[in-house]
């Protein structure tokens, strides 16, 4: 290790780690501007999964803060869509948003929708019986 640490006069680090393209400067800037407008799925289907692994490797406070805000803001919209999914009137924008969800958010959507569906089924059954 010592040998590597002092590897001659041009003291470049022998190994550099860069963030994957889905966490590039442009993407983060876009997320900072408006988390809802970015289709995360186009960046990576496992956007948050990748990001969390990267956070384990790097000490990136800013990235962590941006991710947290993105997740929270988008989760609110995912919840709303999960509730309104039955009432078709989503419009093109809603569909676009749902297409851009990454795997974590899809799971969130499913869980939210299951809950709402369960309550709705019960309400409908009460009326029938």
């Amino acid at each position, binding site marked *: 290790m010592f040998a590597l640490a002092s590897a001659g006069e041009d003291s470049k680090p022998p190994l550099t780690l860069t963030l994957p393209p889905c966490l590039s400067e442009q993407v983060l800037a876009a997320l900072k501007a408006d988390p809802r407008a970015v289709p995360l799925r186009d960046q990576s289907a496992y956007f948050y999964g990748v990001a969390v692994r990267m956070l384990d490797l790097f000490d990136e406070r800013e990235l962590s803060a941006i991710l947290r805000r993105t997740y929270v803001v988008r989760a609110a919209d995912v919840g709303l869509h999960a509730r309104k999914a039955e009432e078709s009137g989503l419009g093109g924008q809603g569909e676009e948003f749902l297409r851009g969800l990454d795997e974590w958010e899809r799971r969130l959507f499913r869980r939210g929708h299951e809950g709402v569906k369960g309550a709705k*089924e019960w309400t409908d059954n009460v009326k029938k019986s």
Partner: protein
Amino acid sequence: MALPLPLGLVPSEAAFLCEMELVTVVPRQRLESIELLSGSTPKLRPPHRADLPLWLAILLKKQRRANIVPPAWLHPDSLREIVTYETAIDVKDWAPPPPPPVRADSRGNSRRINTADTDIVLSPPFLPSCTSAAPAGALPYHWFEFAEMILAHASDDVPSASEVRSLLRDLQEARSAKMRAKITQPESHGEGVTSLRGVGAMELAESRGFVASVAEGIRKIGASAETMRREEEEEHGQDMDDDLSDDDMGL
């Protein structure tokens, strides 16, 4: 997992528990007391009101042997008041649950009747929150299931049932929006702790999966930052301990 059911109560289970709530009925026929696991029911004598479990009341209602007296909070005026509270007065928290039962004495004071000096202290599922004695202007724990069941089976006993129905829809929408806002703005409450005071059983069953998933995601994103903070704190903590022991020495 052995059971495919999700954690916590599912909506049908919450509704099943709601059927244990006592409700006031006006009997049309005499009925002797029935021995039930939850105790014996009062004798039914036609013009006198009596409190029965909801499932039995609905059964008698279906057989046209009793009429159900809806609780005061199910009146459209009371519901409208709560809708106003939810949408205009407090847009962040839910309307508070019903106050504990009080009884007035002859000198014009009122005292809680449900305190530790009586034999049994009752908590929400066992309070008579759906009888005709329940206060108006506050929703009890089982409000949604109870209202739905009453409207489905005894809508002719509820004054202006269609208005009640639409007010209930409004309430449900306003309150679920609050649930989403609450869970997705954990910072607003400080330290990621959220109060769910006043939320009903069905609302909890409905949003449990979503809320738990959101919290889990936030935890995962913050996990590495959290371990780093812990490590730093540990280092600082050791320094602090040293300082403290020095102070002790000085004293």
